[in-house]
Protein backbone atom coordinates (compact mmCIF):
# COMPACT_ATOMS: atom_id res chain seq x y z
CA UNK A 1 0.00 0.00 0.00
CA UNK A 2 1.27 3.41 -0.82
CA UNK A 3 -0.15 6.42 0.99
CA UNK A 4 0.40 8.90 -1.81
CA UNK A 5 -1.25 6.79 -4.48
CA UNK A 6 -3.81 8.73 -6.51
CA UNK A 7 -7.46 8.01 -5.68
CA UNK A 8 -8.31 4.81 -7.44
CA UNK A 9 -11.61 4.65 -9.26
CA UNK A 10 -11.58 1.03 -10.34
CA UNK A 11 -9.34 -1.40 -8.60
CA UNK A 12 -7.31 -3.05 -11.31
CA UNK A 13 -4.76 -4.51 -8.92
CA UNK A 14 -7.33 -6.99 -7.75
CA UNK A 15 -6.74 -9.91 -10.05
CA UNK A 16 -9.65 -12.29 -10.12
CA UNK A 17 -8.27 -15.44 -8.61
CA UNK A 18 -8.81 -18.66 -10.51
CA UNK A 19 -11.32 -21.18 -9.18
CA UNK A 20 -8.75 -23.74 -7.95
CA UNK A 21 -6.88 -20.95 -6.24
CA UNK A 22 -10.01 -19.71 -4.49
CA UNK A 23 -10.90 -23.28 -3.48
CA UNK A 24 -7.42 -23.68 -2.04
CA UNK A 25 -8.22 -20.90 0.40
CA UNK A 26 -11.14 -22.87 1.86
CA UNK A 27 -10.61 -24.92 5.02
CA UNK A 28 -12.60 -27.86 3.62
CA UNK A 29 -10.35 -28.53 0.65
CA UNK A 30 -7.98 -30.97 2.33
CA UNK A 31 -10.90 -32.99 3.67
CA UNK A 32 -12.64 -33.13 0.28
CA UNK A 33 -9.49 -34.32 -1.45
CA UNK A 34 -9.07 -36.90 1.32
CA UNK A 35 -12.69 -38.02 1.04
CA UNK A 36 -12.34 -38.58 -2.71
CA UNK A 37 -9.13 -40.55 -2.16
CA UNK A 38 -10.71 -42.77 0.50
CA UNK A 39 -13.82 -43.25 -1.65
CA UNK A 40 -11.78 -44.31 -4.70
CA UNK A 41 -9.59 -46.55 -2.55
CA UNK A 42 -12.47 -48.53 -1.07
CA UNK A 43 -14.36 -48.60 -4.38
CA UNK A 44 -11.38 -50.47 -5.81
CA UNK A 45 -10.59 -52.82 -2.93
CA UNK A 46 -14.14 -53.61 -1.77
CA UNK A 47 -16.66 -54.80 -4.37
CA UNK A 48 -19.75 -54.19 -2.28
CA UNK A 49 -18.69 -50.66 -1.31
CA UNK A 50 -20.46 -49.05 -4.27
CA UNK A 51 -23.91 -50.49 -3.50
CA UNK A 52 -26.70 -48.22 -2.23
CA UNK A 53 -27.10 -50.28 0.91
CA UNK A 54 -23.43 -49.78 1.72
CA UNK A 55 -23.87 -46.09 1.12
CA UNK A 56 -26.63 -45.83 3.69
CA UNK A 57 -24.54 -47.81 6.19
CA UNK A 58 -21.62 -45.47 5.63
CA UNK A 59 -23.89 -42.44 6.02
CA UNK A 60 -25.25 -43.79 9.29
CA UNK A 61 -21.75 -44.34 10.69
CA UNK A 62 -20.79 -40.86 9.53
CA UNK A 63 -23.85 -39.31 11.13
CA UNK A 64 -23.21 -40.80 14.58
CA UNK A 65 -19.82 -39.08 14.60
CA UNK A 66 -20.91 -36.06 12.57
CA UNK A 67 -23.67 -34.96 14.95
CA UNK A 68 -21.01 -34.38 17.59
CA UNK A 69 -18.19 -33.33 15.26
CA UNK A 70 -20.23 -30.31 14.12
CA UNK A 71 -20.41 -28.45 17.46
CA UNK A 72 -16.94 -29.75 18.37
CA UNK A 73 -15.66 -28.03 15.22
CA UNK A 74 -17.34 -24.78 16.29
CA UNK A 75 -15.79 -25.13 19.72
CA UNK A 76 -12.35 -25.68 18.20
CA UNK A 77 -12.77 -22.66 15.93
CA UNK A 78 -13.56 -20.84 19.17
CA UNK A 79 -10.19 -21.95 20.45
CA UNK A 80 -11.18 -24.62 22.99
CA UNK A 81 -11.26 -28.38 23.47
CA UNK A 82 -13.78 -30.70 25.01
CA UNK A 83 -12.64 -34.13 26.15
CA UNK A 84 -15.85 -34.89 27.99
CA UNK A 85 -17.99 -35.22 24.84
CA UNK A 86 -17.79 -39.02 24.48
CA UNK A 87 -19.03 -39.81 27.96
CA UNK A 88 -21.40 -36.84 27.95
CA UNK A 89 -23.42 -38.61 25.25
CA UNK A 90 -23.70 -41.67 27.51
CA UNK A 91 -24.58 -39.51 30.51
CA UNK A 92 -27.35 -37.86 28.53
CA UNK A 93 -28.79 -41.25 27.53
CA UNK A 94 -28.52 -42.60 31.07
CA UNK A 95 -30.24 -39.59 32.63
CA UNK A 96 -33.09 -39.84 30.16
CA UNK A 97 -33.54 -43.57 30.62
CA UNK A 98 -33.21 -43.69 34.40
CA UNK A 99 -35.45 -40.69 35.02
CA UNK A 100 -38.25 -42.18 32.93
CA UNK A 101 -37.83 -45.64 34.46
CA UNK A 102 -37.51 -44.62 38.10
CA UNK A 103 -40.32 -42.06 37.95
CA UNK A 104 -42.40 -44.31 35.68
CA UNK A 105 -42.93 -41.17 33.68
CA UNK A 106 -43.59 -40.65 30.02
CA UNK A 107 -40.22 -41.02 28.22
CA UNK A 108 -40.58 -37.45 26.95
CA UNK A 109 -40.27 -36.24 30.54
CA UNK A 110 -36.96 -38.10 30.75
CA UNK A 111 -35.90 -36.62 27.42
CA UNK A 112 -36.67 -33.12 28.71
CA UNK A 113 -34.84 -33.65 32.00
CA UNK A 114 -31.91 -35.07 30.08
CA UNK A 115 -31.80 -31.98 27.86
CA UNK A 116 -31.66 -29.66 30.85
CA UNK A 117 -29.08 -31.78 32.66
CA UNK A 118 -26.83 -32.11 29.60
CA UNK A 119 -27.00 -28.39 28.89
CA UNK A 120 -26.07 -27.83 32.53
CA UNK A 121 -22.96 -30.01 32.08
CA UNK A 122 -22.00 -27.95 29.06
CA UNK A 123 -22.60 -24.75 30.98
CA UNK A 124 -20.47 -26.10 33.83
CA UNK A 125 -17.56 -26.77 31.45
CA UNK A 126 -17.78 -23.30 29.93
CA UNK A 127 -18.36 -21.50 33.21
CA UNK A 128 -15.39 -23.17 34.86
CA UNK A 129 -13.24 -22.32 31.85
CA UNK A 130 -14.01 -18.61 31.81
CA UNK A 131 -13.94 -18.30 35.59
CA UNK A 132 -10.65 -20.09 36.25
CA UNK A 133 -8.85 -19.32 33.01
CA UNK A 134 -7.37 -22.82 33.14
CA UNK A 135 -6.74 -24.65 29.85
CA UNK A 136 -9.89 -26.34 28.54
CA UNK A 137 -7.86 -29.53 28.15
CA UNK A 138 -7.52 -29.83 31.95
CA UNK A 139 -11.05 -28.74 32.80
CA UNK A 140 -12.79 -31.08 30.37
CA UNK A 141 -10.41 -33.91 31.28
CA UNK A 142 -11.74 -33.40 34.80
CA UNK A 143 -15.38 -33.46 33.72
CA UNK A 144 -14.62 -36.46 31.50
CA UNK A 145 -13.45 -38.48 34.51
CA UNK A 146 -16.22 -37.19 36.75
CA UNK A 147 -18.89 -38.10 34.19
CA UNK A 148 -17.33 -41.50 33.54
CA UNK A 149 -17.41 -42.19 37.28
CA UNK A 150 -20.98 -40.96 37.62
CA UNK A 151 -22.15 -43.01 34.64
CA UNK A 152 -20.87 -46.26 36.16
CA UNK A 153 -21.51 -45.37 39.79
CA UNK A 154 -25.08 -44.15 39.52
CA UNK A 155 -26.09 -46.89 37.08
CA UNK A 156 -24.87 -49.62 39.40
CA UNK A 157 -26.39 -47.88 42.39
CA UNK A 158 -29.79 -47.53 40.76
CA UNK A 159 -30.09 -50.52 38.41
CA UNK A 160 -27.63 -52.83 40.20
CA UNK A 161 -26.08 -53.74 36.84
CA UNK A 162 -23.86 -51.86 34.37
CA UNK A 163 -26.75 -51.20 32.00
CA UNK A 164 -30.12 -49.53 32.42
CA UNK A 165 -33.46 -51.35 32.40
CA UNK A 166 -35.31 -51.40 29.12
CA UNK A 167 -37.80 -48.61 28.62
CA UNK A 168 -39.23 -50.03 25.39
CA UNK A 169 -42.65 -50.68 26.93
CA UNK A 170 -43.01 -47.24 28.44
CA UNK A 171 -45.36 -44.51 27.43
CA UNK A 172 -44.12 -42.27 24.61
CA UNK A 173 -41.41 -44.72 23.52
CA UNK A 174 -42.71 -45.28 19.95
CA UNK A 175 -42.88 -41.56 19.24
CA UNK A 176 -39.44 -40.90 20.73
CA UNK A 177 -38.06 -43.83 18.76
CA UNK A 178 -39.46 -42.26 15.61
CA UNK A 179 -37.79 -38.94 16.34
CA UNK A 180 -34.38 -40.20 17.39
CA UNK A 181 -33.84 -43.64 15.88
CA UNK A 182 -36.16 -44.43 12.95
CA UNK A 183 -35.46 -45.31 9.32
CA UNK A 184 -36.81 -43.62 6.26
CA UNK A 185 -36.65 -44.93 2.74
CA UNK A 186 -35.92 -42.49 -0.04
CA UNK A 187 -35.78 -44.27 -3.40
CA UNK A 188 -33.35 -47.14 -2.97
CA UNK A 189 -31.63 -45.58 -0.01
CA UNK A 190 -32.54 -46.55 3.50
CA UNK A 191 -31.79 -43.53 5.67
CA UNK A 192 -31.38 -43.41 9.41
CA UNK A 193 -33.04 -40.36 10.92
CA UNK A 194 -29.68 -39.44 12.50
CA UNK A 195 -28.49 -38.50 9.02
CA UNK A 196 -31.17 -35.81 8.92
CA UNK A 197 -30.23 -34.57 12.40
CA UNK A 198 -26.62 -34.45 11.26
CA UNK A 199 -27.26 -32.55 8.02
CA UNK A 200 -29.58 -30.18 9.86
CA UNK A 201 -26.92 -29.43 12.45
CA UNK A 202 -24.27 -28.88 9.77
CA UNK A 203 -26.54 -26.44 7.94
CA UNK A 204 -27.36 -24.62 11.17
CA UNK A 205 -23.73 -24.46 12.26
CA UNK A 206 -22.61 -23.19 8.86
CA UNK A 207 -25.26 -20.51 8.90
CA UNK A 208 -24.28 -19.44 12.41
CA UNK A 209 -20.59 -19.35 11.54
CA UNK A 210 -20.79 -17.41 8.31
CA UNK A 211 -23.90 -15.31 8.57
CA UNK A 212 -24.52 -14.34 12.18
CA UNK A 213 -22.92 -12.10 14.73
CA UNK A 214 -22.29 -15.10 16.97
CA UNK A 215 -20.27 -16.69 14.16
CA UNK A 216 -18.11 -13.61 13.83
CA UNK A 217 -17.51 -13.79 17.58
CA UNK A 218 -16.62 -17.50 17.45
CA UNK A 219 -13.88 -16.88 14.88
CA UNK A 220 -12.70 -13.87 16.86
CA UNK A 221 -12.47 -15.50 20.31
CA UNK A 222 -10.57 -18.40 18.76
CA UNK A 223 -8.31 -16.26 16.61
CA UNK A 224 -7.37 -13.51 19.05
CA UNK A 225 -9.23 -13.54 22.34
CA UNK A 226 -7.81 -10.34 23.79
CA UNK A 227 -8.31 -8.37 20.58
CA UNK A 228 -11.91 -9.58 20.49
CA UNK A 229 -12.47 -8.55 24.09
CA UNK A 230 -10.94 -5.14 23.44
CA UNK A 231 -13.43 -4.36 20.66
CA UNK A 232 -16.36 -5.41 22.82
CA UNK A 233 -17.00 -9.05 21.90
CA UNK A 234 -18.57 -10.92 24.85
CA UNK A 235 -15.82 -13.55 25.01
CA UNK A 236 -17.10 -15.40 28.06
CA UNK A 237 -20.66 -15.67 26.81
CA UNK A 238 -19.44 -16.93 23.44
CA UNK A 239 -17.31 -19.65 25.00
CA UNK A 240 -20.04 -20.81 27.37
CA UNK A 241 -22.46 -20.85 24.43
CA UNK A 242 -20.09 -23.07 22.45
CA UNK A 243 -19.88 -25.59 25.29
CA UNK A 244 -23.67 -25.61 25.57
CA UNK A 245 -23.87 -26.21 21.82
CA UNK A 246 -21.69 -29.28 22.28
CA UNK A 247 -23.96 -30.39 25.11
CA UNK A 248 -27.03 -29.96 22.92
CA UNK A 249 -25.57 -32.27 20.28
CA UNK A 250 -24.55 -34.72 23.01
CA UNK A 251 -28.20 -34.80 24.04
CA UNK A 252 -29.30 -35.66 20.48
CA UNK A 253 -26.65 -38.39 20.23
CA UNK A 254 -27.55 -39.66 23.68
CA UNK A 255 -31.24 -39.95 22.84
CA UNK A 256 -30.37 -41.83 19.67
CA UNK A 257 -28.20 -44.20 21.68
CA UNK A 258 -31.08 -44.83 24.08
CA UNK A 259 -33.95 -45.18 21.62
CA UNK A 260 -31.99 -47.20 19.11
CA UNK A 261 -31.37 -50.00 21.64
CA UNK A 262 -33.81 -49.15 24.51
CA UNK A 263 -31.08 -49.91 27.06
CA UNK A 264 -27.83 -48.04 27.68
CA UNK A 265 -24.46 -49.53 28.65
CA UNK A 266 -23.00 -47.18 31.24
CA UNK A 267 -19.38 -47.68 30.17
CA UNK A 268 -19.96 -46.59 26.59
CA UNK A 269 -18.63 -43.48 24.88
CA UNK A 270 -15.09 -43.45 26.22
CA UNK A 271 -12.67 -42.60 23.41
CA UNK A 272 -15.31 -41.17 21.10
CA UNK A 273 -14.28 -37.63 22.06
CA UNK A 274 -11.14 -38.16 19.99
CA UNK A 275 -13.14 -39.30 16.96
CA UNK A 276 -15.10 -36.03 17.07
CA UNK A 277 -11.92 -33.99 17.34
CA UNK A 278 -10.28 -36.02 14.56
CA UNK A 279 -13.24 -35.40 12.25
CA UNK A 280 -13.03 -31.67 12.95
CA UNK A 281 -9.27 -31.58 12.40
CA UNK A 282 -9.46 -33.59 9.17
CA UNK A 283 -12.12 -31.08 8.15
CA UNK A 284 -9.64 -28.24 8.41
CA UNK A 285 -10.06 -26.90 11.96
CA UNK A 286 -6.85 -25.50 13.39
CA UNK A 287 -5.93 -26.82 16.83
CA UNK A 288 -4.99 -23.28 17.76
CA UNK A 289 -8.46 -21.95 16.94
CA UNK A 290 -9.78 -19.20 14.70
CA UNK A 291 -9.99 -21.28 11.54
CA UNK A 292 -12.15 -24.12 10.26
CA UNK A 293 -15.62 -24.99 9.03
CA UNK A 294 -18.64 -27.08 9.93
CA UNK A 295 -18.85 -28.50 6.41
CA UNK A 296 -15.23 -29.58 6.69
CA UNK A 297 -16.05 -31.44 9.90
CA UNK A 298 -18.97 -33.10 8.11
CA UNK A 299 -16.62 -34.29 5.37
CA UNK A 300 -14.26 -35.46 8.11
CA UNK A 301 -17.09 -37.48 9.64
CA UNK A 302 -17.94 -38.90 6.22
CA UNK A 303 -14.33 -40.05 5.80
CA UNK A 304 -14.67 -41.72 9.18
CA UNK A 305 -17.85 -43.47 8.04
CA UNK A 306 -16.25 -44.70 4.81
CA UNK A 307 -13.12 -45.96 6.57
CA UNK A 308 -15.09 -47.61 9.34
CA UNK A 309 -17.42 -49.53 7.03
CA UNK A 310 -15.05 -49.82 4.08
CA UNK A 311 -12.73 -52.00 6.10
CA UNK A 312 -15.63 -54.32 6.82
CA UNK A 313 -16.69 -54.44 3.15
CA UNK A 314 -13.09 -55.15 2.17
CA UNK A 315 -13.29 -58.07 4.61
CA UNK A 316 -10.27 -56.96 6.56
CA UNK A 317 -9.98 -57.26 10.28
CA UNK A 318 -11.68 -54.30 11.96
CA UNK A 319 -8.62 -54.09 14.16
CA UNK A 320 -6.96 -52.11 11.41
CA UNK A 321 -9.51 -49.34 11.59
CA UNK A 322 -7.63 -47.30 14.18
CA UNK A 323 -4.43 -47.60 12.19
CA UNK A 324 -6.26 -46.30 9.17
CA UNK A 325 -7.78 -43.45 11.14
CA UNK A 326 -4.41 -42.37 12.52
CA UNK A 327 -2.77 -42.41 9.10
CA UNK A 328 -5.74 -40.48 7.69
CA UNK A 329 -5.44 -37.86 10.42
CA UNK A 330 -1.75 -37.28 9.78
CA UNK A 331 -2.18 -37.15 6.01
CA UNK A 332 -5.14 -34.80 6.16
CA UNK A 333 -3.45 -32.46 8.62
CA UNK A 334 -0.31 -32.32 6.51
CA UNK A 335 -2.38 -31.74 3.39
CA UNK A 336 -4.27 -28.92 5.10
CA UNK A 337 -1.05 -27.34 6.26
CA UNK A 338 0.50 -27.59 2.82
CA UNK A 339 -2.59 -26.23 1.07
CA UNK A 340 -2.78 -23.27 3.44
CA UNK A 341 0.90 -22.44 2.88
CA UNK A 342 0.34 -22.56 -0.86
CA UNK A 343 -2.79 -20.44 -0.61
CA UNK A 344 -1.03 -17.80 1.45
CA UNK A 345 1.98 -17.74 -0.85
CA UNK A 346 -0.30 -17.34 -3.87
CA UNK A 347 -1.82 -14.10 -2.60
Amino acid at each position, binding site marked *: *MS*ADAPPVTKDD*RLVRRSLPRRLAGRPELGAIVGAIAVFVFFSVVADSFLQWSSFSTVLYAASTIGIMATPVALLMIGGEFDLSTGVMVTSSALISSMFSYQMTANVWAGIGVSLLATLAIGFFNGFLLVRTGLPSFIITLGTFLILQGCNLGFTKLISETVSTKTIADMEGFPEAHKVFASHLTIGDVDLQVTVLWWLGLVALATWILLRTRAG*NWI*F*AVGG*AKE*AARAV*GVPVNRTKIGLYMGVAFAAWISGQHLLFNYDVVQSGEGVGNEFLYIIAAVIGGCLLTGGYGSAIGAAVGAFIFGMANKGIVYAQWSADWFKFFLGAMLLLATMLNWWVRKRAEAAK
Partner: protein
Amino acid sequence: MTTTDTATRTPLIELREVSKSYGNVKALQGVSLEVHAGEITCVLGDNGAGKSTLIKIVAGLHQHDAGSLTIEGEEARLGSPREALDRGIATVYQDLAVVPLMPVWRNFFLGSEPRKGRGPFKRLDVETMRRTTRAALLRMGIDLRDVDQPIGTLSGGERQCVAIARAVHFGAKVLILDEPTAALGVKQSGVVLKYVAAARDAGLGVVLITHNPHHAHLVGDRFVLLKRGTMAGSHLKSEIALDELTRQMAGGSELEQLSHELARPTEPVEKDAAGEV
Protein backbone atom coordinates in the same frame (compact mmCIF):
# COMPACT_ATOMS: atom_id res chain seq x y z
CA MET B 1 -3.18 26.61 20.07
CA THR B 2 -3.07 28.82 23.15
CA THR B 3 -3.62 27.92 26.76
CA THR B 4 -6.57 30.28 27.19
CA ASP B 5 -8.31 28.66 24.26
CA THR B 6 -8.22 25.18 25.75
CA ALA B 7 -8.85 26.26 29.32
CA THR B 8 -12.33 27.49 28.48
CA ARG B 9 -13.41 24.25 26.80
CA THR B 10 -14.38 21.13 28.69
CA PRO B 11 -11.88 18.41 27.84
CA LEU B 12 -13.23 15.19 26.35
CA ILE B 13 -11.29 13.30 28.96
CA GLU B 14 -9.57 14.62 32.00
CA LEU B 15 -7.51 12.60 34.44
CA ARG B 16 -6.63 14.29 37.69
CA GLU B 17 -4.08 12.85 40.12
CA VAL B 18 -4.91 9.31 39.08
CA SER B 19 -3.15 6.41 40.87
CA LYS B 20 -3.23 2.67 40.40
CA SER B 21 -1.54 -0.18 42.25
CA TYR B 22 -1.25 -3.84 41.42
CA GLY B 23 -0.87 -5.50 44.80
CA ASN B 24 2.07 -3.75 46.40
CA VAL B 25 3.38 -2.36 43.10
CA LYS B 26 2.49 1.27 42.53
CA ALA B 27 2.10 1.35 38.77
CA LEU B 28 0.82 4.90 38.53
CA GLN B 29 0.90 7.79 40.98
CA GLY B 30 -0.75 11.18 40.67
CA VAL B 31 -0.91 11.41 36.90
CA SER B 32 -3.00 14.13 35.24
CA LEU B 33 -3.80 14.63 31.60
CA GLU B 34 -6.31 16.31 29.30
CA VAL B 35 -7.65 15.22 25.94
CA HIS B 36 -9.37 17.81 23.75
CA ALA B 37 -11.32 17.39 20.53
CA GLY B 38 -9.20 17.96 17.46
CA GLU B 39 -5.98 17.67 19.44
CA ILE B 40 -3.36 15.01 19.98
CA THR B 41 -2.16 14.36 23.51
CA CYS B 42 1.09 12.39 23.55
CA VAL B 43 2.01 10.19 26.49
CA LEU B 44 5.73 9.58 26.50
CA GLY B 45 7.76 7.31 28.70
CA ASP B 46 10.27 4.52 28.78
CA ASN B 47 9.36 0.86 29.25
CA GLY B 48 7.71 0.40 32.62
CA ALA B 49 6.88 4.07 33.00
CA GLY B 50 3.18 3.31 33.38
CA LYS B 51 1.97 4.14 29.88
CA SER B 52 0.05 0.87 29.49
CA THR B 53 -1.56 1.19 32.90
CA LEU B 54 -2.67 4.70 32.03
CA ILE B 55 -4.38 3.70 28.80
CA LYS B 56 -5.92 0.62 30.36
CA ILE B 57 -7.69 2.89 32.84
CA VAL B 58 -9.03 5.12 30.08
CA ALA B 59 -9.92 2.10 27.90
CA GLY B 60 -11.92 0.45 30.68
CA LEU B 61 -9.68 -2.60 31.17
CA HIS B 62 -8.62 -1.49 34.66
CA GLN B 63 -10.08 0.87 37.24
CA HIS B 64 -8.11 3.57 39.00
CA ASP B 65 -7.61 3.45 42.79
CA ALA B 66 -7.41 7.18 43.47
CA GLY B 67 -7.91 10.46 41.65
CA SER B 68 -10.64 11.25 39.18
CA LEU B 69 -11.50 10.43 35.60
CA THR B 70 -13.99 12.77 33.97
CA ILE B 71 -15.51 12.27 30.55
CA GLU B 72 -16.89 15.47 29.07
CA GLY B 73 -17.01 17.01 32.51
CA GLU B 74 -18.74 14.04 34.07
CA GLU B 75 -17.08 11.90 36.73
CA ALA B 76 -16.80 8.33 35.42
CA ARG B 77 -15.49 4.89 36.23
CA LEU B 78 -15.26 2.52 33.27
CA GLY B 79 -16.09 -1.07 34.09
CA SER B 80 -15.31 -2.72 30.75
CA PRO B 81 -13.95 -1.98 27.27
CA ARG B 82 -17.55 -2.16 26.04
CA GLU B 83 -18.53 0.62 28.42
CA ALA B 84 -15.63 2.75 27.24
CA LEU B 85 -16.67 2.14 23.63
CA ASP B 86 -20.22 3.17 24.42
CA ARG B 87 -18.87 6.44 25.85
CA GLY B 88 -17.01 7.02 22.58
CA ILE B 89 -13.55 5.93 23.69
CA ALA B 90 -11.90 3.58 21.21
CA THR B 91 -8.52 2.00 21.80
CA VAL B 92 -6.19 0.64 19.16
CA TYR B 93 -3.62 -1.69 20.69
CA GLN B 94 -0.29 -2.27 19.08
CA ASP B 95 -0.37 -6.05 19.20
CA LEU B 96 -4.04 -6.87 19.59
CA ALA B 97 -5.82 -4.52 17.28
CA VAL B 98 -7.23 -7.21 15.00
CA VAL B 99 -7.89 -10.94 14.56
CA PRO B 100 -5.29 -11.99 11.93
CA LEU B 101 -7.12 -14.95 10.34
CA MET B 102 -10.37 -13.06 9.78
CA PRO B 103 -11.10 -11.08 6.61
CA VAL B 104 -10.69 -7.32 6.74
CA TRP B 105 -14.43 -6.63 6.60
CA ARG B 106 -15.20 -9.01 9.47
CA ASN B 107 -12.49 -7.38 11.54
CA PHE B 108 -13.75 -3.92 10.69
CA PHE B 109 -17.19 -4.60 12.17
CA LEU B 110 -16.13 -7.00 14.91
CA GLY B 111 -18.13 -6.33 18.06
CA SER B 112 -20.52 -3.92 16.28
CA GLU B 113 -21.90 -6.00 13.41
CA PRO B 114 -24.84 -4.57 11.46
CA ARG B 115 -27.69 -7.05 10.99
CA LYS B 116 -30.85 -7.41 8.95
CA GLY B 117 -33.89 -9.64 9.12
CA ARG B 118 -35.90 -10.36 12.23
CA GLY B 119 -36.20 -12.86 15.06
CA PRO B 120 -34.21 -16.05 14.57
CA PHE B 121 -33.43 -15.03 10.99
CA LYS B 122 -31.43 -11.99 12.05
CA ARG B 123 -28.25 -12.19 10.06
CA LEU B 124 -25.15 -10.22 9.18
CA ASP B 125 -25.68 -7.62 6.50
CA VAL B 126 -22.67 -8.89 4.58
CA GLU B 127 -23.05 -6.66 1.52
CA THR B 128 -23.29 -3.50 3.61
CA MET B 129 -20.36 -4.65 5.71
CA ARG B 130 -18.13 -5.19 2.69
CA ARG B 131 -19.18 -1.96 0.99
CA THR B 132 -18.92 0.16 4.13
CA THR B 133 -15.49 -1.22 4.97
CA ARG B 134 -14.16 -0.31 1.56
CA ALA B 135 -15.74 3.15 1.68
CA ALA B 136 -14.62 3.93 5.24
CA LEU B 137 -11.05 2.91 4.44
CA LEU B 138 -11.04 4.97 1.26
CA ARG B 139 -12.27 8.01 3.18
CA MET B 140 -9.25 7.73 5.45
CA GLY B 141 -7.11 7.45 2.33
CA ILE B 142 -6.52 3.72 2.67
CA ASP B 143 -6.97 1.94 -0.61
CA LEU B 144 -7.21 -1.78 -0.05
CA ARG B 145 -7.08 -4.34 -2.81
CA ASP B 146 -9.44 -6.88 -1.31
CA VAL B 147 -11.51 -6.58 1.85
CA ASP B 148 -11.92 -10.37 1.82
CA GLN B 149 -8.26 -11.08 2.48
CA PRO B 150 -7.31 -12.13 6.01
CA ILE B 151 -6.16 -9.01 7.83
CA GLY B 152 -3.04 -10.91 8.90
CA THR B 153 -1.78 -10.65 5.32
CA LEU B 154 -1.63 -6.84 5.59
CA SER B 155 1.50 -5.07 6.80
CA GLY B 156 1.72 -3.85 10.39
CA GLY B 157 1.12 -0.26 9.34
CA GLU B 158 -1.91 -1.16 7.25
CA ARG B 159 -3.39 -3.10 10.14
CA GLN B 160 -3.02 -0.08 12.45
CA CYS B 161 -4.65 2.08 9.78
CA VAL B 162 -7.63 -0.25 9.44
CA ALA B 163 -8.06 -0.15 13.21
CA ILE B 164 -7.91 3.65 13.22
CA ALA B 165 -10.39 3.87 10.33
CA ARG B 166 -12.68 1.53 12.28
CA ALA B 167 -12.62 3.78 15.34
CA VAL B 168 -13.33 6.87 13.24
CA HIS B 169 -16.16 5.12 11.40
CA PHE B 170 -17.88 4.06 14.61
CA GLY B 171 -18.03 7.65 15.78
CA ALA B 172 -15.38 7.49 18.46
CA LYS B 173 -14.79 10.83 20.14
CA VAL B 174 -11.54 9.75 21.71
CA LEU B 175 -8.99 7.53 20.01
CA ILE B 176 -6.27 5.93 22.09
CA LEU B 177 -3.29 4.58 20.18
CA ASP B 178 -0.88 2.31 21.99
CA GLU B 179 2.57 2.57 20.44
CA PRO B 180 1.22 2.59 16.89
CA THR B 181 4.67 3.09 15.39
CA ALA B 182 6.76 0.95 17.72
CA ALA B 183 7.12 -2.08 15.48
CA LEU B 184 7.17 -0.20 12.19
CA GLY B 185 9.83 1.02 9.79
CA VAL B 186 10.39 4.71 9.04
CA LYS B 187 8.12 4.83 5.99
CA GLN B 188 5.30 2.81 7.58
CA SER B 189 5.49 5.01 10.69
CA GLY B 190 5.00 8.06 8.52
CA VAL B 191 1.92 6.51 6.95
CA VAL B 192 0.42 5.71 10.35
CA LEU B 193 1.14 9.22 11.64
CA LYS B 194 -0.71 10.62 8.63
CA TYR B 195 -3.79 8.63 9.60
CA VAL B 196 -3.42 9.77 13.18
CA ALA B 197 -3.45 13.34 11.91
CA ALA B 198 -6.44 12.49 9.70
CA ALA B 199 -8.32 11.26 12.77
CA ARG B 200 -7.45 14.51 14.57
CA ASP B 201 -8.70 16.55 11.62
CA ALA B 202 -11.93 14.56 11.73
CA GLY B 203 -12.43 16.15 15.15
CA LEU B 204 -11.38 13.30 17.42
CA GLY B 205 -9.37 13.72 20.56
CA VAL B 206 -6.34 11.48 20.18
CA VAL B 207 -4.13 9.98 22.86
CA LEU B 208 -0.87 8.83 21.33
CA ILE B 209 1.27 6.56 23.48
CA THR B 210 4.85 6.38 22.29
CA HIS B 211 8.45 6.32 23.37
CA ASN B 212 9.57 8.11 20.25
CA PRO B 213 9.77 11.90 20.89
CA HIS B 214 10.34 12.59 17.19
CA HIS B 215 7.01 11.02 16.25
CA ALA B 216 5.30 12.70 19.19
CA HIS B 217 6.59 16.18 18.40
CA LEU B 218 5.56 15.87 14.75
CA VAL B 219 1.86 15.52 15.53
CA GLY B 220 1.36 16.24 19.23
CA ASP B 221 -0.35 19.26 20.80
CA ARG B 222 0.29 18.29 24.41
CA PHE B 223 2.92 16.09 25.94
CA VAL B 224 2.77 14.16 29.19
CA LEU B 225 6.01 12.54 30.29
CA LEU B 226 5.85 9.53 32.57
CA LYS B 227 8.73 8.17 34.58
CA ARG B 228 8.50 5.19 36.90
CA GLY B 229 4.77 5.65 37.34
CA THR B 230 4.88 9.36 38.13
CA MET B 231 4.47 12.43 35.99
CA ALA B 232 7.84 13.84 34.94
CA GLY B 233 6.42 16.70 32.94
CA SER B 234 3.38 18.11 31.14
CA HIS B 235 3.78 20.58 28.31
CA LEU B 236 1.94 22.27 25.48
CA LYS B 237 3.60 22.17 22.09
CA SER B 238 4.24 25.92 22.26
CA GLU B 239 6.20 25.46 25.45
CA ILE B 240 8.61 22.77 24.44
CA ALA B 241 10.98 22.22 21.56
CA LEU B 242 11.89 18.83 20.14
CA ASP B 243 15.40 18.94 21.58
CA GLU B 244 14.10 19.55 25.05
CA LEU B 245 11.42 16.87 24.68
CA THR B 246 14.01 14.38 23.47
CA ARG B 247 16.30 15.29 26.34
CA GLN B 248 13.60 14.91 28.97
CA MET B 249 12.31 11.73 27.41
CA ALA B 250 15.76 10.20 27.25
CA GLY B 251 16.24 10.94 30.89
CA GLY B 252 18.10 14.28 30.84
CA SER B 253 20.87 14.06 33.40
CA GLU B 254 20.93 10.25 33.17
CA LEU B 255 21.77 10.60 29.52
CA GLU B 256 24.66 12.96 30.22
CA GLN B 257 25.93 10.43 32.71
CA LEU B 258 25.60 7.71 30.09
CA SER B 259 27.40 9.71 27.40
CA HIS B 260 30.16 10.34 29.89
CA GLU B 261 30.45 6.63 30.60
CA LEU B 262 30.40 5.71 26.92
CA ALA B 263 32.91 8.34 25.87
CA ARG B 264 36.19 7.11 24.42
CA PRO B 265 39.03 7.76 26.80
CA THR B 266 41.06 9.91 24.36
CA GLU B 267 38.76 11.32 21.64
CA PRO B 268 35.90 13.69 22.44
CA VAL B 269 32.32 12.49 21.94
CA GLU B 270 31.05 13.47 18.52
CA LYS B 271 27.39 12.88 18.83
CA ASP B 272 24.72 13.13 21.45
CA ALA B 273 23.75 9.57 22.42
CA ALA B 274 20.13 10.40 21.75
CA GLY B 275 20.94 10.31 18.07
CA GLU B 276 20.76 12.68 15.20
CA VAL B 277 17.84 14.93 14.38
